[in-house]
C-alpha cells in the first residue's frame, strides 16, 4: 500500500510541476512597468495617497473669525 501511495504522490507532484513549467511568463521589467502604470493612473482617486480632506472619518475643519 505504501509503495503505491508514494508513487501516486510522486506522480501528482510531477504532473503539477509539468503544468507549472508550461505557463507563459513575462519579463519583470514589463510586469513592473504595468504595476507602476496602474498605481500612477489611480493615484488621484486614492484618498489615502492624496490625503483628501473630505474624508468622512476626519472631523470637518471649521474656520472662525478671531
Amino acid at each position, binding site marked *: *500500500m505504501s509503495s503505491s501511495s508514494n508513487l501516486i504522490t510522486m506522480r501528482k507532484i510531477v504532473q503539477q510541476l509539468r503544468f*507549472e513549467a508550461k505557463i507563459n*511568463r*513575462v519579463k519583470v*521589467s*514589463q510586469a513592473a512597468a504595468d504595476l507602476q502604470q496602474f498605481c500612477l493612473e489611480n493615484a488621484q482617486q486614492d484618498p*489615502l495617497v492624496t490625503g483628501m480632506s473630505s474624508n468622512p*472619518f476626519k472631523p470637518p475643519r471649521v474656520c472662525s473669525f478671531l
Partner: protein
Amino acid sequence: MSERGVTLLSACISNGSFSCPQHWACPPAEMCDQTFLAITFGPCDCCSDTKPLMNIYLKNEPVNYCSLCVERMACQGLQPNETLATLKMESETLKTKLEEERAKLHDVELHQVAERVEALGQFVMKTRRTLKGHGNKVLCMDWCKDKRRIVSSSQDGKVIVWDAFTTNKEHAVTMPCTWVMACAYAPSGCAVACGGLDNKCSVYPLSLDKNENLAAKKKSVAMHTNYLSACSFTNSDMQILTSSGDGTCALWDVESGQLLQSFHGHSADVLCLDLAPSETGNTFVSGGCDKKANVWDMRSGQCIQSFETHESDINSVRYYPSGDAFASGSDDATCRLYDLRADREVAIYSKESIIFGASSVDFSLSGRLLFGGYNDYTINVWDVLKGTRVSILFGHENRVSTLRVSPDGTAFCSGSWDHTLRIWA
C-alpha cells in the same frame, strides 16, 4: 454512512483533486502502511469479492472498492518505465528548470523601474475612531460594501457588527466556540459568516429588528476537519470560500451547505486566502504554514502557480488592486510582492529593525501603499513601488492581528489583541 461523514471523508482523503484528468482515486498518502480506513465490509464494486472496502470518490460519485482494486487503478495511470526513481529524478529536473525559467526573466528590480516616480509626501494618519466592546483579543474583521459597517470577531467567541462612523454596535452574536478566527461580511450586507475552533463556517443573516435572536437563524455551511482560519464570500451571497488548519481550502454553496470544490496542495495549515478582484476572473490565492502561497483556479480546483520564498508561515495574502500581483505578510518579519505574470517575487518590504512577524496586509485603493500590521504592536506603511517605508503608526497596545482598507479607500481598520479596533485615516 451519513451525508456529513461522506463529505468529511472526501475532504480529508485526497492529496489531489478528484477532477484530475485520469479520474482515479487517490488514497491518502499520510495513512499508515499496513492499514487503511475500512468503513464497510461487503462486495467490491469493481471485482465483486466480499472484502473490507474503502469508500472513495470517482468522478464525484461515491463507490466502494477493495484495496486490491484501488492499487490496480492507481497503477493504470502510469506509463511504462515510470517508477518511483524516474519520477523523483523528473521532479528534481523540473524544479531546476522552473527556477531557471523564472531567473531568465529577472532583468530588473521593481524599485529600479520606479526610480523616476515622484516620492510620496509626508503622511499624517491618525486613529479617528476606537471601537471598544470586545472582551478579549480581536482576531479578524471585515468591512461591509456600504463603507461604514464592520464585522469583527474575537477570542471570547463574540462576533460584533459596528457602525464605524458612530462607533455604535449594531448586532452581537455569541458563537458556541472560542477563538473565532475568521469572519466576513456578505456582499449584500445582509449576512455575516464566521468560524474558528468549531471547524465550521456559519452564516448569520442580519435583521433590522434589534431584538431578534441572531443565533437562532444560524446556518452551518462549511465543515472542515480542523480549525477554520479564513473565510470569504465570493461575488454573491451564495458561495463561500474557506481555508482551514486541515491544509485544504474549499468552496461551498451557502443554501445547501454542499461542497462545490476542494483545493488540495498545501502540506500544512492554510492560514489565509484572498479572492482575485472580480474583473480578473475566477482565481484566489492562499498562504500557509508550509511557507507557500498558491494561486488556484476556482472552477477546476487546480493549483495554477506556487511561490515559496518566505522563510516562515504566511499569515496574510492580499491581491494588488489590478489583480496582476499579490502581497503576503509572514512570521519572517517581511512582506513580499509577487507578480503573477512574471511568476516570481518582485519586491521585499523589510527592515533590519523589524523583527516581529507581519500578521496582516492590505493595499490602498491605487496599490501605491501597503499597510502591514505587525506583532510588535505597530503598523508599517510601505511605498509599494519604491520598497521603502513611508510611515509607522503607533497606537495599539498589543499585537495587530487584522487589517483591512475600507471599500472606498478612505480609511483602514486594524484589530488587535488589545481588545480594540481602530479606524485610521
